[in-house]
Each structure stands twice: as C-alpha cells, then as structure tokens.
C-alpha cells in the first residue's frame, strides 16, 4: 500500500491503538488541544519510540529499514527551537547531509539566505524556526513530520512556510504537520486529523473536521466572525 501507513499505534499518552495514513503529495494537518497526543503520534511515526503497531512506507516496514535509510525517507522537526551550541546557520542546515548548493537553496526558500553565516544564538526565535525548517527541506526527504512548523512565526512567515510545504507536496513529499492555528490548517491542508485525549476523533477534509460540533467538543470554542470565542459550557 502506498503512503506512510501506520496501524494500531499504541504509546503512553495515546488511548487505544491509532491508525493514520499520509499519502505522497498531500499536506495533512494534525490538530488538537495541548496534550492531545500530537507530538507523541509524530514521534512514533518518526520511529523514535518503540511500542505496539506497525508503520509502513510504501509497503516496506519502517522497522526493517536501517537508520540511514529511514533518515533519507523521513525528516522530523520537533517543536523545540533549541540549538545547544552557537553554530552557524549554514552548518545547521548542512546537518541534513545536503551539499553546499542544497543548503543555500533551502535557506533561500525560507527567506534566510542573508543569515547563512550568522551564529544561531544571534537569531530571534522565529528566525531560528525558519533555519531549522531549512534543515528539514535540505534533506529532500519523502515524508516530512513537522511539530508546529509555524509556531513563533509572524503571520506573513506563517503563510510563507505553508507555501513552502505546498511546494514540498507538489514535488511528491507527504507532509504531516501539527498546527494550533486552525484558520491556517483549514485553508492550507488537504486533510485534517483532529486529536483529543490521545485519540483521533475526526479526520477528513478540513471542512468536515472543523465542524462546530467538533470545535465545541474538543477545544471548547465556537466560531465568532472570522475568529473563535470560548463556548458557554
């Protein structure tokens, strides 16, 4: 079966066994309140945690791949923006294993070309987030598992990142990314997966997932003009 296919994933902080599929060329938004299990699921799919369930990439079990094979297939970006040493931005992007041209290209795609030789400790959090995303892009992996790729970004750069992810999907990559910005997920994702309390409670096209009933039940919010407000409970 094609795609990144996970079946029966059970881990601490997840309830029961979860199934999730990401196809090549699509952007899947992973949404849900804090603590709903998004990061746990992303880490499990990246092969970082052991437990029940199976993960296949285009029919090949993830467990049967060597670590370098996995690294070429799957790129993972954690929500944390921490870099422990004041390394240069281009050196960080080069950790993907990419050569000089690919590093420069990836930095250009996130608007960070001018920062290539800057030390990462001199960047703002948002700039660092873009540099770390460039590291993921430079690896040219088939599957991008991104934990809150738009956190810490201003609205303009949020849209830029979504445009970059769309370009990744267009070249055939499958993107699974968690978001807290529901408007962004609604307008830019092909599908959404809504999580609550360690379970997947809805999935499908954004309009089918971000229904009034689901928003009240999972987030405790209702639509209010262009935004949201707390629902009366």
């Amino acid at each position, binding site marked *: 079966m094609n795609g990144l296919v996970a079946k029966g994933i059970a881990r601490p902080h997840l309830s029961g066994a979860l199934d999730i599929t990401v196809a090549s060329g699509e952007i899947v938004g992973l949404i849900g309140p804090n603590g709903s299990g998004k990061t746990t699921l992303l880490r499990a799919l990246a092969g970082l945690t052991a437990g029940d369930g199976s993960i296949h990439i285009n029919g090949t079990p993830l467990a049967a791949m060597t670590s370098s094979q996995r690294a070429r297939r799957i790129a*993972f970006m954690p929500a944390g923006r*921490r870099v422990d040493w004041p*390394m240069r931005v281009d*050196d960080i992007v080069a*950790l993907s294993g990419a050569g000089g041209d690919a590093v420069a290209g990836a930095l250009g795609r996130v608007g960070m070309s001018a920062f290539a030789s800057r030390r990462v400790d001199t960047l703002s959090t948002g700039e660092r987030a873009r540099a770390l995303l460039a590291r993921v892009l430079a690896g040219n992996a088939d599957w991008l598992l991104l934990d809150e790729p738009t956190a810490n970004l201003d609205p303009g750069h949020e849209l830029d990142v979504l445009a970059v992810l769309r370009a990744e999907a267009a070249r055939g990559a499958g993107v699974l990314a968690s978001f807290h910005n529901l408007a962004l997920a609604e307008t830019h994702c092909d599908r959404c997966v809504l999580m609550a309390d360690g379970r997947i409670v809805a999935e499908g096209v954004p309009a089918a997932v971000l229904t009034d009933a689901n928003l009240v039940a999972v987030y405790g919010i209702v639509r209010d003009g262009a935004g949201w407000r707390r629902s009366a409970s």
Partner: protein
Amino acid sequence: MSVLRLCLILGGVLIAVSAASLLVGDVPILRLMDSDPGLARMLIVELRLPRLVLAATAGAALGLSGAALQGLLRNPLASPDILGTSAGAALGAVMTAYFLGLSGTLAMAGGGIAGALLALVLLLALAGRGASSATLILAGVAISALGGAMMNLALALAPSPFAFYDIMFWLLGSFADRNLDHVRVGLPAMVIGSALLLTAARGLDALALGEDVAATLGHDVRTMRWRIVGGSAIAVGGAVAVAGIIGFVGLIVPHLVRPLVRNRPGPALLPSAVAGAALLVAADIIMRFPLNGKTLPIGVVTAILGAPFFLWLILSRRGTQA
C-alpha cells in the same frame, strides 16, 4: 579555519613544546651530550621521554574526553570529572595501596584503572540502559561524591603519616618520577579510550538539535552515548592512574578549541586532543622550575588556573541561556 589546518597548527605547537620538554630540566642535556652521550641518551629515554609521553597522552585524553562529554551532554560545563571517573580511579589507587598493601607505582596505576572501570560499571547500573544525559550527570555526581567520601575515609585511616603524604601528593597530580612502567600501564588505556571517543564524533553536531533530531538523521544516539561514556572512563582512568587527578584541562581545552571550528562539537574533538596534549606538556615544563625551592604538583596549578576560568564561564552564561 578548517579542522585539518587547526590540527596542523596545534600539532606544530605540540612538537615544539615536546622538543623543549626533552631538553629543559635540571640537567643541561645539550651539554651532557658532548661530555657523556650515553648518560644523556639514558636520561632522555628512561626519564624525560616517559614523562613527555605521559603528559602528552594524558593531556590528549583529558582534552578529548572533555570535548566529547560536553558535546554528548550538550553542556559546556561538563568535564571528565563529572561522571565519577576521576574519583573512581583515585579511590582505586588508594585502596590498592592501603588494603592490598601494594604501594608500588605500578600497582597503584593498575588499581586506578580498575577503579575507573568500576565507576563506569556502577554508572551503567545506576543510570540504566536508556539513560538520558541528565540521569547520567546525576549518577556521575553521586558516584563522585561516594568515591570522594570513601577516599577521605581511607586517608583518615592512613597507617602512617608518610603513607598519607605519599598518597596525597600522588593524587595532586604530577609527571615527575614517572618511568617506562607507567607508560606501559597508562598508555594503552589512554589510547584505547581516545580511539573509542573519536569514533563517536560523527553524530555530535546533529545532537546539538536534540536527541530526536539526531536519531532521525540516522545517528544511533544510544551507541554514541556509551562510546563516549566508556571511552572517557577508560582514557581518563588511565590518565588519573599514572598522573593523579589533573583537573580543569578537560573543561578548559574544548572551550579554547570550539570557537575555532565554528562551535561544532564534532570537529572540536581531534583539535581538543592535540591542544590538550600541548597544554599539559607545556605546563609540565613550567612545573620543572621550582618556586621557593619547591616544585608544585601540576594538578594544583591546573586547578588554580582552571577554577577562575570555570567561574568566568558561569558568569558569562548567566542570563544568556536557560
């Protein structure tokens, strides 16, 4: 600066200080070569060469271990001392001298290596297989404290004031009066440990982005962790066993080297080894000039110089990073 160029420059410095180490001392070797070449040769081969080899390898082992541990634990304040290796080695040497009655230098050196390995086994047992870096540090601190306490107990129960003085002086660190026997005991441990450390260099840069990212970039974080912990225990155990506790070299050297390799922890390893060797050989030369008629133990001098550096490091980090 490229790593190769940096290593060549530091290697040049190491060769220069090594030549000085063979020539400088109480006996003017160059003059002796004219009058009694046989004696000069014996002096160099039997006394100064072992001293040079031990100072260089101990410096390399300490500098390399410090750089590797700082990279692994992602903590610029990490040093070989924090995993309890030095304390274990020192305790092993003291126990060998006291309880086995083997106060020969060779037996104490062997006891030191055994103590370092024992401290490592204890660390593995305490921290567990999948231990995080924080757990490793805590277990190391606990082992250090235990080792220090046991050693003080042994010293308090010293059979004679002379034994007490001998052990204390030995522990303070020195390359004086070391011979080929010390090289035979210490060198293999330091070389094996250092080789193990160098094999772990590849993934250290990726580890700067966290263990998850390093793992998804194809690095086996767990293997890397145990190579560095084991390698530093063996290398530092060998160094302590033959030279006593020489503090702060493992802390300071990586800080001097890292900015020269664009703050990448992996490429800092090899230059840290060469710089550590050059630093300790140079320090050992300076130690040969007595102060007020007394020669200072090298460990005391590195501590006197290193402690203010450590303080500066903490003050410079205050408020910059959580």
